[in-house]
């Protein structure tokens, strides 16, 4: 029998390699880049005096610029948003997890202290982080943190520090991160034009509130335009817009909810191949100005939960946006990846009934309109698009009352034709991208007039 040495211990020391693998594992490359943008945006906020980013705010961010270049050889992000302080670098930005006695930045979005490290490790293995900032008496102070991952991984002994070295000052106060020796995933993705276009789209969507306030973001020298969220208004259509204060512990959270018709409901609920479909509809959630959940149709925003139907294509046209603003980002309902909502958040759960209310109003409307299609379409066409910050306060949405007419018996016609033939006909009918269903209907009308004639 082998005696167990009572002094033996099960080793529990972490290795650097393990940490790197864990923190890069559950975040996508795209989300990593958004994390770096968050840090730049937070820098811009600090430089503007840390004010909350709500829709009513008129902060001008046009002095600030973030330039991203991404190619299979290298990645860089450079901003003029004020820079990271030496104190930040020594005590916070490079530790794995936040120190408890931490002072948080007011109204920031970088809450878990992990974003930058995770991002640069995800991108590559030859990393250079340079920062130039101004201290209290206006002196410009530069420093750099170079990280050669292979060298850093050589020893697992604590402390797990990175060297801070002297550096030349950058042209403007800000941060300049350059990554060479990209990881295989980054190399492949940055060689894909589709990836880069989608990155631009995501940035335009998630930072639309900042971009519309003047912030400039460039990807490979081309400016990203902010997506516009607009809702339609008329005498009979009015979006809901409410603002209230909530609390989590001692911390204040401002909640704003807007919802209504962003686009006309779909002609048909058949999946249509040529159609953009319902991609941009659903619920948007923003935390301190950054959209963290876009066009959500899942149970995260509430669809398919208590007394709230699951999303259906019939509901296309609806956009709701809920904005949470808090001085302490830790009370915002964010997950650690900052890409989704922590559904257990008290503040979020208390807002859900209002979200559900306007969603259900819309659902009822789309059901009612099926029996009064002509009248509904006429009223919908009269509504004009208004940007969300121009929507007036209103406790609940207004939608038309429709008089149901008995349904005429219809015949559903369903047939298949080669795409090339359909496209040729669509083109002759006036629009090559006309939805298949519309081409079918037009061809029926055409044949009817020709063969049966007007009665």
């Amino acid at each position: 029998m082998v005696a167990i040495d009572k002094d033996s211990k099960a080793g529990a020391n972490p290795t650097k390699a393990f940490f790197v693998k864990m923190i890069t594992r559950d975040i996508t490359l795209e989300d990593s880049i958004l994390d770096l943008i968050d840090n730049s945006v937070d820098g811009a906020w600090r430089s503007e005096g840390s004010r909350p980013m709500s829709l009513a705010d008129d902060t001008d961010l046009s002095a600030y610029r973030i330039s991203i270049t991404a190619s299979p050889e290298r990645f860089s992000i450079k901003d003029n948003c004020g820079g990271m302080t030496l104190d930040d670098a020594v005590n916070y930005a490079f530790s794995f997890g936040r120190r408890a006695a931490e002072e948080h930045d007011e109204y920031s979005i970088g809450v878990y202290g992990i974003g930058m490290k995770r991002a640069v490790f995800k991108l590559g293995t030859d990393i250079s982080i340079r920062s130039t900032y101004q201290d209290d008496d206006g002196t410009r102070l530069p420093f750099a943190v170079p990280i050669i991952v292979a060298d850093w991984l050589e020893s697992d002994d604590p402390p797990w520090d990175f060297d801070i070295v002297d550096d030349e000052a950058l042209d403007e106060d800000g941060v300049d991160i350059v990554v060479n020796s990209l990881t295989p995933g980054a190399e492949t993705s940055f060689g894909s034009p589709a990836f880069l276009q989608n990155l631009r789209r995501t940035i335009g969507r998630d930072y639309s509130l900042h971009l519309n306030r003047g912030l400039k973001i460039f990807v490979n020298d081309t400016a990203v335009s902010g997506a516009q969220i607009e809702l339609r208004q008329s005498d009979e259509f009015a979006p809901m817009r409410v603002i209230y204060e909530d609390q989590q512990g001692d911390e204040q959270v401002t909640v704003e909810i807007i919802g209504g018709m962003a686009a006309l409901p779909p002609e048909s609920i058949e999946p249509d191949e040529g159609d953009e479909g319902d991609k941009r509809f659903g619920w948007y959630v923003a935390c301190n100005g950054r959209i963290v959940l876009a066009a959500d149709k899942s149970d995260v925003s509430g669809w398919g939960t208590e007394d709230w139907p699951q999303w259906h294509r019939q509901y296309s046209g609806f956009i709701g946006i809920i904005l949470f603003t808090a001085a302490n980002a830790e009370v915002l309902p964010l997950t650690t990846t900052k890409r989704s909502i922590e559904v257990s958040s008290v503040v979020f759960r208390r807002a859900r009934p209002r979200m559900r209310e306007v969603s259900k109003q819309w659902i009822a409307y789309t059901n009612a309109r099926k029996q009064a299609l002509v009248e509904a379409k006429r009223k919908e066409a009269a509504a004009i698009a208004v940007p969300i910050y121009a929507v007036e306060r209103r406790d609940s949405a207004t939608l038309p009352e429709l008089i149901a007419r008995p349904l005429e018996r219809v015949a559903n016609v369903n047939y298949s034709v080669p795409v090339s033939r359909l496209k040729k006909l669509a083109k002759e009918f006036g629009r090559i991208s006309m939805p298949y269903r519309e081409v079918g209907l037009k061809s029926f009308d055409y044949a009817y007039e020709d063969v049966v004639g007007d009665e």
Partner: protein
Amino acid sequence: MASFDVVNYSLRPSKSIQRQIVFDGVRTLQSHLDLDRLVYVGFGSIWFTDFVMAHKLLGIDDMVSIEGDEIGYSRAVFNSPYSTVRVRNGLSSNVLPTLYNDDLIRRRPWMIWLDYDREFDETLRDDTRSVIENAPANTVLIITFSGNEMRYGQANDRPDRLRELFGDVVPDELAKRACKDDRMQETLANLGIDFMKSVAAELARPGGFVPAFRVIYKDTAPMVTVGGLLPTRGATRVASDVVNGADWKCFPAKPIIAPHLTIRETAVLQSLLPSARSLSRPQVQSLGFDLNDEQIKAFEKYYREYPAFAQIIA
């Protein structure tokens, strides 16, 4: 009516010049990369012009021609120029999958040129994707399609149509004026290349896609030729260096619009070249005929590739 009933391929000088440039490019690639026992796959029609060039210029033996039309197929079999050319009847989307599993060619690099007359459509997109996803390592893929703006809908509809065809690579800001006139061909060429790169990246095809060909040419209708190499991972760097080098001729900055010249005119003009100074119009006139400045410039640039009728007879 299929186009071989209407047009004799050998009388399109711009197309001929473009073809020569592409084949010369592949020959250059052959000398730098391991394109051992290359196979040629294409649409030979009944003329097999590209097949003859593949055999003579690139030393390719095993070749496959795809012909969809029934009568065309019978004529193609009859006109097949060499013993090692196989003709397959059917649409490319049906025939290509059989080639990925064909024992004779599946482990060898291909030069596959899908040379369509019609515009880029869903079929061509699917064929392109299929080849990038399935073709053997070191395959050279080239596609040609019509760049005629009218084939892509009314001016207002073209950006949406391009989005339908090319997907995410189409910038959201694509302007309508980028889809008009000769800008349409430039836009199509750029989107074609971006599309191919993205398909290879999405698939994580080791070695990716190295763009190598981008030629716009016009005899009657403007045509767009784009393509590149699907190298093994180890060959990517070499391929990239070759196609980005100063001597690579397959990215001409301007469209090829060659004049139609008689044999006499060609011979006489050619005898003045190469010349240290550009040919001038008075010089041409003194030869006894006339051409406009564009035509003279085009001939001067491409006189080495300009078709001599004798070269295309099998």
